[in-house]
């Protein structure tokens, strides 16, 4: 068998000491602070736009002609799925890299800054046409709807900026490995490596898509192959969703056990979950195209299987988390079959928020498994159900984990401490957000089953009886949305208070240790090149058959349409 390596060596010990005494270097802290500030400003803006949408859908607010529903929706999607998630993920993992690898290399820090400004520049370019009502194509921007070319050029810069950060992370990890031969990449950096591998490979398809769209949007070529473009988009879109999920999962495995005073789950199994998610992810994209024409039944069937396969590491995660909770609570004297839960720190927002986030993943994951099944997808496709689903997965599981992280990560990078008042604010915020999301996403799921379409501004369809029956649910949607807006305001206040005004002090970066009697992790887990090759092979298996079919048997392409 393979030889195994010790978990920690001298460098580790030295670095831990250095980190404890000095904390994060000011330059690395500034980088993460900037990324997190943008993330939370995005949630503020995105939240306001979300509320506008919710009120409009309930028939309570008519949007003015200069800012119509679809402009708002495009901006809401872009701000929250692209800006919030990308900036938080990068800010968090760069702090993690800095902490666990003994600081960022100067070169890498520079790359992250270049990436930062490229993304901001790209985002500004993309927003201008949205505001001018030249790009109401939603964040999915599929052809045949065509936006102003400026919009797509903005997207190119965002992708390039993300690549800068991905390569920065690879360089830092590689250099650490060279300096620490024979050691495992620290677990949080291992997660970061997985996330950046996915970010890079997942955004290659969308880069190809955008490069075929740009000449078409300029009118240099007349038509575009719609099926190819949609397929390339979802290879990316689906991966992106799972990148945030993996980011949240990293916190569940590594941070939360420390916050509750326990140890983390088995190191080998944790790394296997990361590897499995990285290898199997991209191919899940097809479950967004179950209703698309032009994909043969056997191919769709194969993809149902590939999608469900991703459920497996998720189930492992669920098991692992509850095992860690129970073990920790029992060590603290918890008793009984379920009575041990009393020993968990419910009043600590750093635990409560990610805990609820995890719990939300149970219904969210179940809904996802339902949707990915051919027949059930026919019922809910493009209805509000789907919007309810991703507000559960993203708006709760991922975003609430991010919120929970912010209560120590921001004090950590600004060399301040979490005060009891802000902790209390955080607990209340968590409860409000939970209620708001349950109400809003519950209403969305239900009204979706009754047929209310997504991405459609308020309409009674000439007072059609079915459409009128949606109104009570849409009203609940607006109530949930209002609660969420309150939650957004509290959260953003907490973030900037912790960043600039909280009392100075030292906050620890909480990383749980493994159990003492755990067997050392085998070295094969470090073979990232091999995992990437497996991923490419799997992507080939999933995409070669349908893509060849789309291209060889292509119908005449589509000219650009402006439907708004």
């Amino acid at each position, binding site marked *: 068998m393979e030889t195994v390596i010790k978990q920690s060596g001298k460098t580790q010990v030295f670095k831990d000491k250095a980190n404890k005494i000095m904390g994060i270097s000011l330059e690395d802290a500034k980088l993460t602070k900037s990324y997190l500030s943008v993330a939370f400003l995005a949630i503020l803006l995105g939240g306001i736009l979300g509320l506008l949408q919710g009120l409009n859908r309930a028939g309570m607010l008519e949007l003015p002609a200069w800012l119509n529903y679809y402009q708002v929706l495009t901006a809401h999607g872009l701000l929250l799925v692209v800006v919030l998630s990308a900036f938080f993920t990068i800010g968090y993992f760069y702090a993690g890299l800095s902490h666990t690898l003994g600081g960022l290399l100067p070169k890498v820090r520079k790359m992250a800054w270049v990436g930062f400004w490229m993304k901001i520049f790209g985002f500004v370019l993309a927003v201008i046409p949205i505001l001018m009502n030249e790009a109401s194509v939603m964040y999915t921007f599929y052809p045949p709807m065509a936006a102003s070319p400026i919009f797509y050029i903005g997207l190119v810069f965002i992708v390039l900026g993300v690549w800068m950060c991905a390569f920065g992370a690879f360089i830092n990890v590689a250099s650490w*490995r*060279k300096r620490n*031969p*024979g050691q495992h990449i620290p677990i949080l950096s291992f997660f970061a490596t997985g996330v950046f591998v996915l970010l890079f490979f997942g955004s290659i398809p969308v880069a190809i898509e955008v490069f075929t769209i740009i000449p078409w949007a300029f009118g240099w070529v007349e038509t575009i192959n719609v099926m190819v473009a949609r397929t390339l988009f979802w290879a990316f879109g689906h991966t992106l969703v799972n990148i945030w999920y993996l980011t949240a999962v990293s916190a569940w495995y590594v941070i939360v056990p420390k916050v509750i005073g326990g140890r983390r789950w088995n190191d080998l199994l944790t790394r296997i979950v990361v590897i499995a998610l990285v290898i199997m992810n991209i191919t899940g994209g097809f479950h967004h195209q179950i209703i698309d024409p032009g994909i043969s039944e*056997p191919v769709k069937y194969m993809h149902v299987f590939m999608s469900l396969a991703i459920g497996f590491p998720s189930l492992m995660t669920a098991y692992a988390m509850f095992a860690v909770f129970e073990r920790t609570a029992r060590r603290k004297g918890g008793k009984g079959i379920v009575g041990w839960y009393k020993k968990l720190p419910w009043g600590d927002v750093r635990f409560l928020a990610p805990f609820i986030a995890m719990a939300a993943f149970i219904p969210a994951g179940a809904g996802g498994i339902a949707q990915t099944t051919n027949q059930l997808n026919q019922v809910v496709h493009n209805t509000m159900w789907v919007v309810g689903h991703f507000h559960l997965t993203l708006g709760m599981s991922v975003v609430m984990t991010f919120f929970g992280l912010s209560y120590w990560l921001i004090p950590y990078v600004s060399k301040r401490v979490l005060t009891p008042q802000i902790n209390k604010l955080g607990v209340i915020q968590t409860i409000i957000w939970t209620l708001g999301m349950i109400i809003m996403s519950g209403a969305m799921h239900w009204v979706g089953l009754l047929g209310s379409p997504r991405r459609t501004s308020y309409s009674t369809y000439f007072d059609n009886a079915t459409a009128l029956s949606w109104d009570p649910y849409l009203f609940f949607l607006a109530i949930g949305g209002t609660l969420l807006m309150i939650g957004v305001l509290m959260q953003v206040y907490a973030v900037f208070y912790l960043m600039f005004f909280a009392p100075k002090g030292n906050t620890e970066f909480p990383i749980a240790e493994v159990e003492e009697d755990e067997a050392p992790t085998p070295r094969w887990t*470090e073979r990232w*090149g*091999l995992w*990437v*090759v497996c991923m*490419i*092979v799997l*992507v*080939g*298996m999933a995409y*070669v*058959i349908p*893509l*060849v*079919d789309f291209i*060889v*048997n292509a119908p005449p392409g589509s000219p650009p349409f402006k439907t708004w």
Partner: protein
Amino acid sequence: MKSPVYGLLLLLALMLPPISNLLESIMITHMHMQMPLLVVSGLFMAKFFQNRFPEFFSKWNENGVPGLLLFSIIMMYWSLPRTMDEALTLTSVEVFKFISLPFLAGVPLRDSWPKLNSFWKHALIIFFTILFLALGWLYIWSPVQLCNNYLVIEQITLGWGFISTAFAMVVYLIYSYFMDFSKYE
């Protein structure tokens, strides 16, 4: 010693008519799914033969190169359009496929791999990369239908399957060229 049993079960499963019919009904699953799985079943079963006939392997496959050659010849044989066609029409060729891929490709590969030095390992991967690129080129740009049993569109799909597999191998080669594992150990 469970792995030979799993290998045998896999082989038997692949031989079941519904499964073999399904995999053979599509050109790319025939060549890129069924055939590799047959080889994999042989990889699993190899231990049984190694334990049973240790002298045979040490005598005939001392440095691993003969096994490698046998593996390569069998694999090349089954990459030809004509052999795939015959497997579908002649029962004897179909039987040969189910015997040759596990026992003449899978078993020798498993026996050879640990004996080979990195030169031969890389040589094998490079050889198959070039072979796959060539086959990809053949299947994609061939002006005629190469198999009686499969349509041109399936042939093109298979060609791209070869190209994407070759791409994965190129990535691996680049990775192992730049990564000096001894530096990390």
